[in-house]
Structures are given as C-alpha cells and as structure tokens.
C-alpha cells in the first residue's frame, strides 16, 4: 500500500509520463540487478536469486496458512461431510452436489444479492467519509490533528468483538444510551425500541459499526498521501481560481488515483468478508435476514454442521468476490502490459 502512493509523488500529475524513478522502483520490486551496469557474472547471478530468497518466508507462510486450508476447503466442498462422516473419519465424495444445491437455491442467491448490496453501501460510505476525514486532517492545526489521529487510531485498534459488544450495549432495547438519548430529545417511540428486530435497523447498526471501524484506515492513508503532494500545487490551483471541489477532483484525485483505486478494492474485500461484526451483533438475525455470505457459510457449515455445504458456499463466495474484483485486476494487468 504505502509503496504505491509513494510512487505517485514522483510520478507527477500526468500518469502518462513515465517517471524517471520507475527503473529504481523496479529494482526494489524484484528484478534486482537487471538495470545495473555490468558486473562480474557470478555475483550477478547470485544477486538475481536474492529477491526470491527474500520472498521465500512470506510465500511459505502464505502456502501454509492460506494455501493448505484453501485446498482442504476445496476438497471438502466436493464431499458430503456431516457429523457422521467427521466422527467416523470416512470420506464421501459427492461431485458437484453441494454446488448444484446452492446454485439452485433461492436462499443462496438472496444472500449473495444482500451481500453485494451491503458491500456497496458500506464501501461508498467508508470511502466518502474516510476521504472527508483525511482532507480534514490535512487542514487541521497540529493539536487538533493529533487529537483526531488518536481518535482514529483507537477506533482502528479496537478489537472487533469488543467493538461489537459496545455497540450492542449502545443500542440495547432497555438500557441503551441511544434509545435513552432519542427519547430524551423527544422521539418517544424510540424508547424501548428493539434495533435488532428488523432487517433494516439491524443493518443500520452493522453498517455504522463496520464504517466506523474502517474509516481510520482510509482517512489516515489519504492524509499520508496528501502530505506527499507539495503545497505549491495547491497554491497554483488556488491561484488559477479553483474552488475546494475542483481542487479535489482535478488535482488531488488524479494524483492519488492509485491510492483511491487500491483502497476502494481493499475495502470491498474487507466489507464483503466481514464476518465477526455481522455474526457477533445479531447472529444474522432477525430470521436470518442479515445473513451475508460469510455468515451464511458459517451457519450452514458449523451451525447446522453441514461442513461440505459450508465449504461449497465459501468457495462460491470467493468466486463472487473475484468477479467483484475483476475490474481492479484488469486495471493492474493493463498497466503491467503498458510497461
């Protein structure tokens, strides 16, 4: 992440112009030695392997912690795996049975649609809110900036389950401070209102929780990005008579476009796979109406102990997420070709 927009500084406002430091960046990125003047060939070959050697621990950890569970998950998704098979240690293959069951189930498609809508709403709110706070950080004086940064870091550092518990208390029917406050300011029907008994009100609380938890990431990163934009550029824009809105759209946004692109897509991933907050807040209730795909996979897989079904749902979740991410990958690969 950080590396990406550090690059943009040197790149300047026009991305079409190849920055002079690109070669240096490539050197860092992995093909060390390729851009260097000739050297004795023996040490050159050794130098060529060093980057791969350095990558090895990360790759090994990824293979162990992500690759192995993923392969196991894939295998399980083609099995009938219920408590009987689990306890008896038997393997029962059922081909694409789990997949066809899901793909023909209206419950799955409802949940998928709900997940996508939930993700879009949250990502838009996070990006807009986070950008505004980031811009604010850039304008604030030293003390206020420190205060706001501390607040953001605390929100970011809060463990999910703890945050969820706090939100449960805030929105508690009888003892919650939110209902108390709404009642106190005159909205009396909110006294004893059960936020978790309706789909939309439950989603509203979940959204608030997820957005609140993710704003600091966007805000602090944007602020970090903005500090790399030299003050003269803003001054020049102001001299040319650009207002705040125009300065943002025509100066800041194009310069930090890679930041916005990668952050948006990271947020899509994070919101789409948000499990802890959604499940811990109300277990996908009421009546399963706030189940998103990861919660659905968990409820079917662990709650109902259909481990094969749960595995298939989680594989389908990856496919859907990959589809959502395809635009990002296209952009990345296109830029790769251009170089």
């Amino acid at each position, binding site marked *: 992440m950080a590396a990406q927009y550090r*690059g943009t500084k040197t790149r300047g406002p026009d991305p079409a112009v190849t920055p002079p430091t690109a070669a240096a960046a490539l050197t860092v990125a992995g093909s060390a030695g390729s851009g260097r003047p000739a050297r004795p060939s023996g040490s050159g070959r050794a130098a060529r392997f060093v980057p791969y050697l350095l990558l090895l621990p990360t790759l090994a950890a990824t293979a162990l912690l992500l690759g192995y569970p993923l392969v196991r998950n894939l295998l399980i998704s083609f099995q009938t795996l219920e408590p009987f098979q*689990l306890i008896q240690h038997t393997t029962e293959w059922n081909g694409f049975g789990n997949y066809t069951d899901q793909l023909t189930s209206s419950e799955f498609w409802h949940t998928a649609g709900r997940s996508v809508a939930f993700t879009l709403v949250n990502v838009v709110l996070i990006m807009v809110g986070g950008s505004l706070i980031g811009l604010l950080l850039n304008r604030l004086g030293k003390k206020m900036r420190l205060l706001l940064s501390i607040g953001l870091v605390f929100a970011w550092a809060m463990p999910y389950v703890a945050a969820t518990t706090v939100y449960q208390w805030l929105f508690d029917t009888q003892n919650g401070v939110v209902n108390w406050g709404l009642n106190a300011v005159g909205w009396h029907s909110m006294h004893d209102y059960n936020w978790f008994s309706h789909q939309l009100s439950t989603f509203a609380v979940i959204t608030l929780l997820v957005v609140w938890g993710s704003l600091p990431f966007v805000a602090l990163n944007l602020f970090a990005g903005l500090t790399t934009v030299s003050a003269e550029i803003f001054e020049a824009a102001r001299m040319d008579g650009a207002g705040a809105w125009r300065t943002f759209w025509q100066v800041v946004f194009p310069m930090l476009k890679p930041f916005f692109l990668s952050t948006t897509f990271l947020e899509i991933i994070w919101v789409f796979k948000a499990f802890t907050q959604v499940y811990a807040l109300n*277990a996908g209730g*009421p009546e399963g109406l706030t189940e998103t795909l*990861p919660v659905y996979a968990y409820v079917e897989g*662990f709650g109902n102990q259909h481990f094969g079904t749960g595995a298939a749902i989680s594989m389908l979740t990856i496919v859907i997420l990959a589809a959502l991410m395809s635009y990002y*990958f296209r952009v990345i690969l296109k830029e790769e070709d251009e170089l």
Partner: protein
Amino acid sequence: MKRKLIGAIGVAGMMIGVAACGGSGGSDGKASGGDAGNTITVWLMSGSNPPNWTKQITAAYEKKYPGKKVKIAVQPWDGIQQKLTTALSESTPPDVIEVGNTQTPYYAQTGGLKALDSDKAALGASDWLPAMSKSAVFDGKQIAVPWYAASRVVIYNKKIWADAGITATPKTQDELFKDLGKIKAKGTKDAFYLPGQDWYAFDGLLLDAGADLVKKDGDTYKANLDTPQAAQAINLYKKLNSFGTAPKDKDEATPQQSDVFAKGDVGAFLGLGWEGAGALTKNPKLKDQIGYFPMPGKTADKTAAVFLGGSNLAISQGTKNPKGALNFLKLAMSDQFEGALAKEGGVVPNKAALNTNLQGNEFGTVSAAAAANGGTTPLIPEWGSVENAPNPITTLFMTGVLQGQSPSAAAQKADVEMDKRLSQK
C-alpha cells in the same frame, strides 16, 4: 510496474482468506486428551453437577482406583452440538460425556457413542424408569445410560407475592394471571420473567395444549407448528412474557434468568432447581424467600404438562480409557451417587426407589410430581438438526409471534426450515 502485480496477488490472497470461514472441521476441543490410561476426562453440562456431588464422586473414584484420576470439565449448553461433534471426531475424545436426552439419538446415529449392552445389567438397567431410559436406546442398542430428568416449575419470590396480598399459590392458569396482575399492579416491573426463546418452556405449553412440535408422516417426521394448539400455546406464552420486561429475542441464558431473579425484584420465572439454587448463591438475602410450584393447568385437577428435560451419560466410541470410563459410569449410576445427585440437585433420579432422596428438596418434590405429566421431543436422530443454532422454533416462530406476527404466519416460516432440517440425513 511489477510491484502492482505483486500487490494484486496479495489482494487475491486476502480474498482467499474469506474461505477460512467455511473451512474444515476445526479442532477446538481443548478439554479433551484422556491421558492414555490414568486420567479420564468427563464432560458434564452446565448446571448438572452440584458441587458436593462433584467433590464426592471424584474422591470416591480416586480412592477406589488408586493412581487413577478424573477430570471433570463443565460445558455450556450454548453451541454444545458443534463442540461435541468436533470432540468426538478427535483421536482422544473425552471419555465420558453427558448428552441431553433430545440430542442423544443424533449422536448415536453418528456412531460417536459406545454401545453399552454388555454392561447395562451392571449399571442397573432393570430398575430404570422407562420414560427416561427410552432416549438412551438407539436402533435397539443401549447407547447411553439415563442419568437424571428434570422439569421446569414456577420459581417465585415469596416476599413479592405476599406483599401483593397473595396467600396461596395458584391452582389454575386463570388464577396465575390474576395473581401476576396483582403483583404488576403493585409496581413490580417483572411480575413474570419469561424471555422469548425458552423453547423448552414453550414445548411444555404445547404438550399441554395437546400437540407436538412434529407429526409423523409415513416414515418421516414433519414440522407441526401451524396448528390451533401451537397458536394457543404461543399465545399463552406471549401473555406470560407480557407480565415482565424479558427480551423477546433472547433465550433464558442471555442473561442467565437466575441472575435476573437474584436481584430480588422479579416475581417469578419458569426454571430448574439449579437456577433457584444459583439465585440464592448470587444473593444470599433471598434465603427462605424462594418458593416453587408447578405450572398450573387450565383446571385445578391437573398441573400443566411439562417438557421432561434430562440427560444421559455416554462413553465415547473413540475413548482411549474404556475401562476407566466404565468404572466412572458404574459409580455415577450407583444408588449412592444417583441418590446424592437427586438430593443435592433436586433432579428426578433414574429409579423410582431413589425418589425418597427428594424429601426436603422443595424444587425436587414439585418437579418430580410435575414430571409425571411430562413429555419430550421426538427421539429421532434428525431432531438434533432442528436444535442446531439458529433454532427455527425460537428465532422464526417464538420471537416472530412475540414481536407481532400471527402464529400461523410465523409457524409457516418455521415449518419450512424445520422440514428442511428434518429431511436431512
């Protein structure tokens, strides 16, 4: 730029992390691990083992079998099925486990429980109460042994009732509602505390209305909540819930209703003996203030039917200490310890002859009498799936009706989900 490609791969890696949610069976059975030979692990459920009984049976076992040890681990009911499945699939499962009577067929069908036919005579099978031992038999095999039964009764705060001018406990449901009205009129916010998802309590009312949660349809079972009887039972439940501020979308353990009662400002709740005892431990000032009476029926001649909750003890199929496990089972099934459990825990023992132990235990006396009119959920393996969280009976039906849906509309939703689960093998 290659670093972007690397970034993209990293992003792809994060996406794959999503799959970890639905992954393999997991292994969080921390408490397992019978020490190949000398220590046996016994899993008991929260509320089952009273403190003195636990101390005495551990001491007795370790004295009778020198060098051997018992490790008793108490498990919460919430999420127990997932935990038990995982534990039974491990190479060193707990040796002895307590299994709820309604969940026993489910585990029997997974093959995780050891058949005890050759030892059942030594365990006292000839004297077991038939109503209790039924749930411990599966496919003609003795898969577990009946440990105890218990039925819910009304646990009330004598002081609050006396302050409302009530001198005798109600004998009919009409009298009960009249009394609760008086208590509420006195300013007690929770004349009756009944959270919306105590489905065992609901099942009692349903049995009393003359229906069951499921009906037999040829060889299979079908959900049966969309009936006038279920509507009658849930309306009665709703009325009881309205005499307090208990949440409509939580069960009796969130928060523990005995903790709520312990605060001393709750008129009554439907509970088990250990809950009354728990309230007293939490608030010793309630001494001599806690009373018990059976849930009254529609008429004074008969108390309401109740859900006969209970537990069996079983030995895991994969136990590494079959001998130690059986020895523990024999001890727990002995008249001495079965009697001690009834006496201290106030639960119905597995032999009629041991009922004398209940003398002096107010809950036990009331509960054992009520148990005569008790029933259970159908003892079929598919039933275990219905109880898996989120339980459609509570989340779809009970909470649905309590939050304003018509019984029939909520029942239809719950029935669809129950049928789905009942048809899964």
